[in-house]
């Protein structure tokens, strides 16, 4: 029945602190070529610490075994597909890892003389230009360290423009289908959040928008395609409505994998957007980051971009700090440069035609899954899917099985779960995004697994609810973890 995986012993491994033995070491430092100093003399006696209590002491082989054993307990893209919606878990090209480690780039200090940092600056300038072309916008900042950081930057830019016009306004409109970072960002930017309900097709309700856009509204934050994977057909109209009232349109670019080479946000009325380099542009998720969240803007917002900006100075690049209207910095230094290198490498590898092909494949793969799973899972909205498809657990719920259970059973079939229970406008959502990385073998294996689980729900729902069965741990007690938080190891 389950053909993609078979169980295999995985090594147990204690915590580093439990493996430690006094005096064991894994490091080597060269001998000092200068006279030693007494820390008490150099720092003041009261400033010198006693030893670090219970800090690890292991040998090199113990260290490598520790982390290798831990790694074998993870699922990863290198194992197989992640059907996570809006995460765009595509292949992380290894050449990206190699080029990011090029010595002259990896060891560049952000404050080294600009004449000796031209390579880094050229890379950043090229990436800015490329992302502007892809998004159809006029200027790009590479400073933000993640999507949410980019969202905050974008909203601060909008605030700055409105302030210059005399009134920053009070509210930001956020669709009820939005990712949680959108309202969280608006709050940090000092705005009140007003939710806009989606219409019956799960799309932006133009009538509701018209009623909601008052002189108090600074912007609408929209994701396009939306979190159902559907293109917002009225987005240009939404932009008109907003602009007519002096408000702006911010786009969350998390779903750009459906648009690259096909449609450009700048062409359908977007004033500012962020991109997720760790989604659309293949930089690795690394278990939760680093990412990068560049922000692309129309000309009107360009003066407010974070400082410094790259500018051409004769035949060289230079950092321009004289930006009177800038919102300031959103972080130290210039951006997550190592992540930017990886994204540029991906773009160079694909080129213009390749990037477009990737989009086509991503949308094709999602639609293939949709067509083949439609007979088994409820499709709450009939609108055409782009790079992701959202089902609901409506057909499984009568048997007492919910989307979370199906997801856990999928693990036994050798896959990471899809996105569970999001967006919230779908009751019991299953959000699936294959990306262009997956070929038919992996897609068919995923589809077969989902069909098999749908059948299991009919014949033995109780069994599905107890999944997963073949993992190192069964379902963990998240309730106990939150009720009595233990957030660090302590000696007995």
């Amino acid at each position, binding site marked *: 029945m389950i053909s993609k995986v078979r169980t295999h012993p995985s090594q147990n491994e204690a915590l580093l602190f439990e493996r430690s033995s006094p005096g064991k070491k894994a490091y080597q430092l060269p001998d000092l070529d200068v006279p030693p100093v007494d820390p008490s003399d150099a720092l003041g006696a009261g400033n010198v610490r006693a030893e670090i209590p219970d800090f690890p002491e292991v040998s090199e082989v113990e*260290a490598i075994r520790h982390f290798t054993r831990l790694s*074998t307990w993870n699922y990863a893209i290198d194992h197989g597909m992640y059907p996570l919606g809006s995460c765009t878990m595509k292949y992380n090209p290894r050449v990206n890892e190699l080029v990011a480690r090029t010595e002259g780039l*990896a060891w560049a200090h952000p404050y080294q003389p600009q004449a000796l940092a031209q390579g880094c600056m050229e890379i950043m300038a090229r990436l800015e230009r490329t992302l502007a072309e892809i998004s159809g916008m006029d200027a790009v900042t590479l400073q933000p360290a993640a999507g949410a950081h980019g969202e905050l930057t974008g909203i601060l830019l909008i605030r700055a423009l409105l302030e210059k016009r005399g009134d920053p306004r009070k509210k930001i409109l956020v669709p009820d289908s939005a990712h949680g970072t959108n309202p969280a960002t608006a709050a940090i930017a000092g705005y009140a959040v007003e939710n806009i309900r989606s219409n019956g097709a799960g799309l932006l309700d133009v009538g509701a928008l018209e009623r909601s856009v008052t002189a108090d509204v600074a912007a609408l934050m929209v994701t396009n395609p939306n979190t159902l994977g559907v293109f917002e057909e009225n987005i240009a109209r939404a932009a008109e409505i907003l602009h007519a009232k002096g408000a702006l349109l911010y786009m969350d670019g998390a779903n750009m994998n459906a648009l690259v080479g096909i449609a450009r946000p700048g062409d359908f009325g977007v004033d500012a957007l962020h991109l997720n380099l760790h989604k659309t542009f293949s930089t690795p998720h690394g278990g939760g980051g680093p990412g990068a969240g560049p922000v692309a803007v129309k000309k009107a917002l360009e003066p407010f971009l974070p400082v410094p900006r790259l500018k051409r100075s004769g035949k060289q690049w230079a950092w321009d700090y004289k930006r009177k209207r800038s919102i300031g910095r959103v972080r130290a230094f210039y951006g997550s440069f190592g992540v930017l290198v990886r994204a540029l490498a991906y773009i160079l590898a694909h080129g213009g035609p390749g990037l477009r092909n990737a989009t086509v494949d991503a949308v094709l793969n999602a639609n293939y899954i949709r067509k083949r799973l439609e007979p088994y899972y409820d499709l709450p909205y009939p609108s055409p899917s782009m790079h992701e498809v959202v089902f609901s657990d409506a057909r499984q719920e009568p048997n007492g099985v919910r989307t979370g259970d199906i997801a856990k059973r999928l693990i036994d079939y050798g896959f990471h779960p899809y996105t569970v229970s999001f967006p919230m406008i779908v009751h019991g959502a299953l959000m699936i995004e294959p990306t262009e990385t997956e070929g038919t073998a992996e897609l068919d294996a995923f589809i077969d697994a989902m069909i098999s689980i749908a059948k299991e729900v009919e014949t033995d729902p109780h069994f599905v609810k107890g999944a997963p069965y073949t*993992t190192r741990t069964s379902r963990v007690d998240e309730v106990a973890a939150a009720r009595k938080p233990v957030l660090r190891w302590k000696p007995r």
Partner: protein
Amino acid sequence: MMDVCGVDSAEGLFAHLPEAARLRRPLDLPVGISEYEIVDYFRRRAAENANGYASFLGAGAYNHFRPVLVDAVASRGEFLTSYTPYQAEISQGTLTAIFEFQTMICQLTGMDVANASMYDGSTAVPEAVMMAARLTGKGRALIAKSVHPEYRETLRTYAKNQGMLVEEFGYAPEAGTIDLDDLDRRMDGATAAVVVQSPNFFGIVDQVKAAGEIAHRRGALLILIFTEAVSLGILDPPAEPDIVAGELQSFAISPSYGGPFAGIIATREKYMRQMPGRLVGQTTDSRGNRAFCLTLSTREQHIRRERATSNICTNQALIALMATVFMTVYGKQGLRELAVQNLAKAHYLAARLKPRFSAHFFNEFVVRLEGRSPEQANKLLLKKKIIGGLPLAGFYPELSDCMLLCATEMSRCADMDALSEVLS
């Protein structure tokens, strides 16, 4: 596949898009290139940077030997290409490593709880200040001028939009430590947080205890910042801070032109629920095995949305993992020895020059130049393939005849001798 989807061609997949939204020309980008050409492109860019220079720059990004194991572990596909560990059953590797990371940060800083990382040290500052504002209900922060200037700028950008007042207090002109009288004068009952850095931007071990007393007396929290994680190996963690926020770049990754780095926030147990960012907690599975999972998620954006403690989602997990491997390889003895080597190198160099400030310093110090400007001195040093210290004119106009020098375990005696020859 297209048959299954019911389309004749790729165009059929996009036929439903409004025509006005469609890009009807190819992207104005070159065609894709081969792996060799990609490697060559970046090699040529790297050749346009400094190569083979000795560097005495610090100021928030530090040169340290990185054990080979750091990249060996971080390059494993199971860590590199894995997702955020929301599905605990298939993410125990990442979760266990983060739990160990959180523990080690607590051990180093003397705090009770640490999160799984922030973007970097600079953004950890506003996050810590906003946390203090939530905890105290107050809307003002006092930050030392001796905190990294770009960290202070970042705080200002965030604070402006939170209605948070940010004021600076100065440093003692001879010692280089914080001006306690200035802090005391500016302190009031409406202050949520006093923010100090130690070692501070000038490399100086600062008066954290005294700052804490002033803060606590008036009901504010003390936030301690660090930019040089290696200092944690030798400096006694003060008991006064309520929140520690800092930068782990030294433990994880080479300077990389400024990123990706990894920040950290650590605090007392009683403040735990107001922390931003991800937290990994220990629990059990149904068979009684110890297991780890993300926890206290009701603080976070995906649950609380506009009432979340922060909007942070993706953080710096892989960089934090690299720091975890670094801390493991060096271990209890090694982190101390590493810090002591840094002390020895910097103090050797300082003995040949005249530090501008009199207070104790770790691996960075300020030098005042006579006879030539810092910029002129650096030009001469470049001819010897040495990148000198950071001229301070841009950040501190009152110190425009000074530069900030950093020496680490990587600094060679011969280069330090050559540097001091030019500077003295």
